[in-house]
């Protein structure tokens, strides 16, 4: 018996039908969890490596800013966009980042509603990633327009000229969908942070820290009334977020699906985009969580079981995406539309075949490796697979956007798109922005939801005697 317990302690990825798996390892109690998480922002000096990463990220973010400044100065022409290919990398990046920004809210909201307790270790992390991804995503539609100083014309702002946006345009729907999603996600994230911010405030040793965390914890005292209201609101926000998870990428997919361009004009896009978004979002969470947990010593909070669960989702959504790819081809053939048929054939065997096959190898073939438990549970291996997934998902958006545009109805207007150095720098720079925000988050905020993790620990349930023993009673769903 004790050996079984021990093996659970060491390897919580083992499924034993008689018991629930442990989600928090290392014999943690409430105090050690607090210490572990709150200890990170409380460090006086942070590791050199953080500084190194931060400097790199800020430099890239600076490059991003300079690129945008040059873009304002010179115009859209600095990119590779051309006549048939009106949308290039900026839109690809936009959809890519919005997709990345799916995992967080999915984990926080849907898994919360489904009472998936394992979410608690990663939800803060994933939500932060979501928000930063949405920030990156929102930059692109703003700057990709020809006159980037005028994106506010897309908002329904009352004005003396009675100029009003066109509600028939999917781009306008985008404004609302992504805007709502970003707002609600940020709200949800911040709301979840309040009890933890209060914890750090209470432990603060300097005036400035006390003040800063004090302001943001909004006078949280931890009273039962606060907790009650907090739980209720959190539930409502989760319920609000849930449809948004599905809607935002559905609406983004409408940008393509409601256009009449062959290769865009397909009804499969909304579910296909949502599955792809979850796929890429989880891949990004894993890519970031593995180094972060090693860096901050959070292996006992973000355990292999968490990672494995995410990898399983990646495997599942990867297959959905694969299904969508094949179904697109089937419909293109079955629909017998000359133009659509050509577009798909051209994707796979035309001038952009290389991009198509990168996409298929990364998105359909590479996640299949997660059938092997060894790969699913070995951090460095899963990171490699997840990076492939992220590459593949970027290429998926590239393939959809560019290969459909470059050869449409009239062959006289066919063309070829090649990115310029500015396209590349802008894309790389957006990672700089993302990592800058993310590293600041890691440095100054609790990266794991302390209160929620504690709620999921056996210790939270008074009737335990020896943790792990009363697994059925404890809320350690896995």
């Amino acid at each position: 018996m004790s050996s079984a317990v021990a093996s659970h302690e060491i390897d919580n990825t083992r499924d034993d039908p008689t018991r629930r798996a442990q989600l928090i390892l290392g014999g943690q109690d409430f105090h050690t969890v607090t210490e572990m998480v709150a200890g990170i922002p409380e460090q006086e000096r942070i590791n050199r490596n953080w500084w190194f990463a931060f400097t790199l990220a800020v430099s890239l973010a600076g490059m991003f800013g300079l690129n945008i400044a040059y873009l304002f100065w010179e115009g859209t022409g600095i990119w590779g966009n051309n006549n048939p290919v009106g949308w290039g990398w900026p839109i690809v990046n936009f959809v890519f980042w919005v997709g990345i920004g799916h995992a967080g809210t999915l984990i926080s909201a849907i898994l919360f509603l489904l009472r998936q307790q394992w979410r608690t270790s990663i939800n803060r992390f994933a939500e932060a990633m979501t928000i930063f991804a949405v920030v990156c995503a929102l930059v692109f539609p703003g700057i990709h327009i020809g006159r980037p100083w005028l994106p506010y014309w897309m908002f329904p702002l009352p004005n003396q000229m009675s100029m009003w946006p066109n509600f028939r345009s999917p781009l306008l729907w985008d404004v609302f969908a992504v805007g709502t999603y970003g707002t609600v996600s940020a709200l949800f994230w911040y709301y979840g942070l309040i009890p933890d911010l209060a914890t750090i405030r209470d432990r603060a040793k300097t005036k400035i820290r006390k003040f800063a965390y004090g302001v943001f914890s909004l006078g949280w005292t931890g009273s039962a009334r606060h907790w009650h209201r907090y739980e209720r609101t959190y539930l409502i926000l989760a319920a609000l977020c849930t449809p948004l998870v599905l809607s935002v990428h559905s609406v983004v997919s409408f940008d393509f699906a409601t256009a009449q361009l062959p290769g865009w004009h397909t009804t499969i896009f909304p579910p296909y985009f949502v599955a792809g978004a979850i796929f890429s979002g989880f891949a990004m969470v894993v890519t970031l969580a593995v180094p972060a947990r090693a860096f901050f010593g959070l292996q006992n909070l973000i355990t292999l079981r968490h990672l494995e669960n995410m990898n399983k989702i990646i495997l599942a959504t990867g297959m959905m995406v694969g299904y969508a790819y094949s179904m697109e081809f089937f419909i293109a053939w079955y629909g017998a539309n000359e133009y659509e048929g050509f577009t798909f054939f051209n994707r796979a065997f035309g001038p952009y075949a290389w991009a198509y096959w990168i996409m298929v190898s990364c998105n359909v073939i590479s996640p299949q490796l997660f059938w092997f438990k060894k790969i699913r549970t070995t951090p460095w291996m899963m990171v490699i697979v997840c990076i492939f997934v992220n590459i593949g998902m970027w290429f998926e958006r590239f393939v959809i956007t560019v290969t459909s545009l470059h050869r449409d109805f009239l062959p006289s207007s066919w063309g070829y798109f090649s990115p310029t150095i500015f396209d590349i720098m802008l894309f790389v720079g957006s990672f700089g922005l993302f990592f800058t925000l993310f590293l600041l988050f890691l440095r100054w905020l609790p990266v794991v939801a302390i209160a929620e993790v504690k709620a999921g620990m056996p210790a939270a349930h008074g009737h335990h005697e020896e943790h792990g023993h009363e697994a059925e009673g404890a809320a350690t769903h896995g």
Partner: protein
Amino acid sequence: MNTQPQYWRTLAELENAPELQEFLAKEFPDAATTELSGSSRRRFLQLMGASFALAGAATGCRWEKENILPYARRPEGLEPGTIRYFSTGMELAGAMQALQVASYDNRPFKVEPHPRHPFAQGGTDAYAQASMLELFDPDRSGTYLDKNAPSTAEGFATFARQQFQAAKATGGRGVRVLARASSSPSMGRLKQQLMAEMPSAKWVQWESLSRDNAMLGSKLAFGSNHRTHLDLKAAKVIVSLDDDIFGSHPARLRLAKDWSSARKPDDGVMNRMYVVESRYTSTGAAADHRLPLRSEQVKAFSIALEGAVKAKLGMGAAPAKKGFLAEGKASKWVDAIADDLVANKGKGVVTVGAGQDADIHALGHRLNSLLGNAGATVTYTSFADREAEPAAFKALVDEMQAGQVDTLVILGGNPVYDAPGDLDFAAAMAKVKTSIHLGLFVDETAKLASWHVPMAHYLETWGDGRTWDGTLTIAQPMITPLFNGMSALELVAMMAGDFTAKPMELVKASAMAAVAALTPPPAEDAAAETPAAEAAPAEGEAEAAPAQQDLELETARQALAAFKAGFDWRKTVHDGFVAGTAFPTVVPALLDFSVAAPAERAFKAGADLGNGELEVVFYEDGKVYDGRFANNGWLQETPDFMTKLTWDNAAVMSPATAIKLGVTDRDLIKVAVGGKSVDLAVYVQPGQPTGSIAMAVGYGRTAAGIVGGYKTKGYEQVGFDVNPLRRHDALFAVEGAQVTKTGGTYKLATTQTHHMIDTLGLAAIQKRAPNLVRAASAEEYAKEPEFAKEMDHEFHHKLSLFEEMDWGKGYQWGMTVDLSNCIGCNACVVACTSENNVPIVGKDQVLVGREMHWMRIDRYFKGDSEDPVIAHMPMACVHCQNAPCEQVCPVGATMHGTEGTNDMAYNRCIGTRYCANNCPYKVRRFNFHNYNEDLKDPKNKVKTMVFNPDVTVRFRGVMEKCTYCTQRIHYAKRTAKVEGRALKDGDIVVACQAACPTDAIVFGDINDKNSQVSKKRALARSYEVLKELNIKPRTLYLAQIRNPNPALAEA
């Protein structure tokens, strides 16, 4: 030290600013070099104006502040804000094109066809359209140059007085004038005067694209110089032997018009055209049958054709066919054409291209004579004898080399660039003591000349000339010379000693003389003018050169006669022509002559030619002509009809030739012929005869300007100079070319993916093209009139998500494009560029697919890659009633007008480019950069004058596209409203429609059932492109109907 803003204190201080110096040099060419002594009020104002202009340019704000002043006293007849049209004409290589120029407040901005000219019957060419940009080209020369140092008009006058006085003293010994071909009677008269003053001087005429083989042919056939006129309206069968009648014939507009008017499939009127040609021309694309042959093969083919015709006419047995003529297509062709010609005796036309030898031209005359076409569909006018241009030019170069030329006056040409490779004009010019170059630009020749004189543009000065039929056409100036230029008339008058000649007076005198000649002279004078002399004007000159006194007397007599005949100068200028001045036609008697047998090699099929035996043909590509329009961005950026090349020429060869030579598209090759070689890039073009390489002339200029390349100023040359391969006796084709790959590739900017595309794409094009450009034979059309509509993809549910407007009310604009008539001449493309202020983006931007043309001509190849058929269609916004672009714009910048147009609000556009993505025709154009940024440069200020003031100049980041010339619609509506009436059909002529020589484009109100456009739309062969998308375009296409010969039907 002094941080206060610097105010200029003295004019001298201001004068030192280098940018001001540069500005002045451009804007006030004389002012820049003359000493600023004192401060006259006029000079002060000029300088202030200049500094304000600089200040405005330097601030770099988006909206420049500009002060405009109203007239204190309005000139009579000037109504601000209304367009006025003035008659004028543009002469190119000795043929006048009658034009009207639209002018706003005395600023010309658009070239239009002449609506009433007896010869010009609608349409203009791309050159004429683009001449507006040439007029306002900031690179134009504005300074007299004395050995490349700035001088003044006075300086030149002083020099000229001395020089020509001295020349006169010797009777003009060693004086040579090198002129371009001219049909101007005024120039002819001045030339006579000059020759009377300087009997030893010589006048040499030179055109790099000389058509004098035709003249030599007529001399061979008839014994004297005759010009051939084709009546394509009456012709049933047209056989072109390497003659690009729609592309490079001086009468191309009229020929195209006549051809199209005899091609009305709906009325059952169809001519038939066979084209045998040495490269793929637009004439070949329009033909019912096309046979690609090398230039030398055309000769063999022509001889065989004559033999076959003679045999059919019972004049002996047909000669045995050999070589390529004995097998395959060519063999069938000889008999089929001969049959067709004989069956249509008196209703056929055989025409021979300028690149063919003189004896083939003579053979053409003989064929027309044998077939009874001469006098019916083919007529002649006679001219005085003259030496052929190439021979005269060579003689001149030889004289120059021998040091026999003291004074060389070059009237507007650029022989240093365009002389063929066997004549080293530059070296010869160095041996001339004094050379004077009159030109629009400081070009290759100007740089080597001792004097350069800026020339006035044809829109800046008076001129005259004759259209191809001989009608005297008056060119009046639209604006005072912008760059202080002088006209060729003035310079020749100066040479003859007249320093005060007024071009207007000269032109007026010519018009008077022409009117006087129309009225029969009194009986006692009749002896002086024989009918023969009247019938033989020498392309602008009378036959004999009478003495000076006689001339004056003659002038006075003509003035009197003209006065009696009711000559009205104002009316003549207003009309722009003198009616009844067309040359009288004659049918000269045919002489006996023999045609030299072609070389043995000519009988070889192209595939059998080895490297070293290849043929190179040189052609005019409809853009830069012989190089004179090289600095014209509108023309450089116009895609060649066939190759879709912009900003370049190339070695155009067929796929088979390329495979044989082991080269592919964009490879750099060296082509060597007879010891001379040029390096250029390969362009693979299906339909080019195998074994032959076609090269457009006029590229590779080293001193054209910022647009066309200027080596010493660091502007790269555009394209490749192929003149070194040409010979004065072989201007259009040379044999025995050796091709070697030099390694490396070259970027060619095409606006359409072309032949070298992946097989997947090629297969899709083959599948789609017949459905996009629908075509049938006349026979099929008669049997199945609705064939075009039947090709529509079936769709049953015509659902629209949105409520449609009521299209039954008011004006509803629509357009039809008749594919049977389109010849791909590009006039519409350039006209649209001019009318709508479409920017030029340059080669780099075309390379990445960002050309801005609102109108383009799509072309697809069908069938065999060695001998394909071209399907082409002009394409611009089709104004969908269920427009996909309108639905996706988030800010509503593109919306539907109540008159059915799809409108663009540039101010509202933020540039999401979603509309362009969703446009199935891909006709929307996006301003990726600020393509008008060069206008900030003060020296480009003159360029702003070319803009149509009715059309917004778009900023970067904004989408644009065809508006159906909305400014013209509104202008016409305003005019009608002022006149208190409704619009009539024909009140609105859109720019592309106006420029179209074949009336392929028709625009109008589709609610008016009697309008032209409604009638065209109602035709059985009208169809919507991409109808299956249910987007309801307003532009309908009329399917192309060809009239193939059943005997040549493909198996």
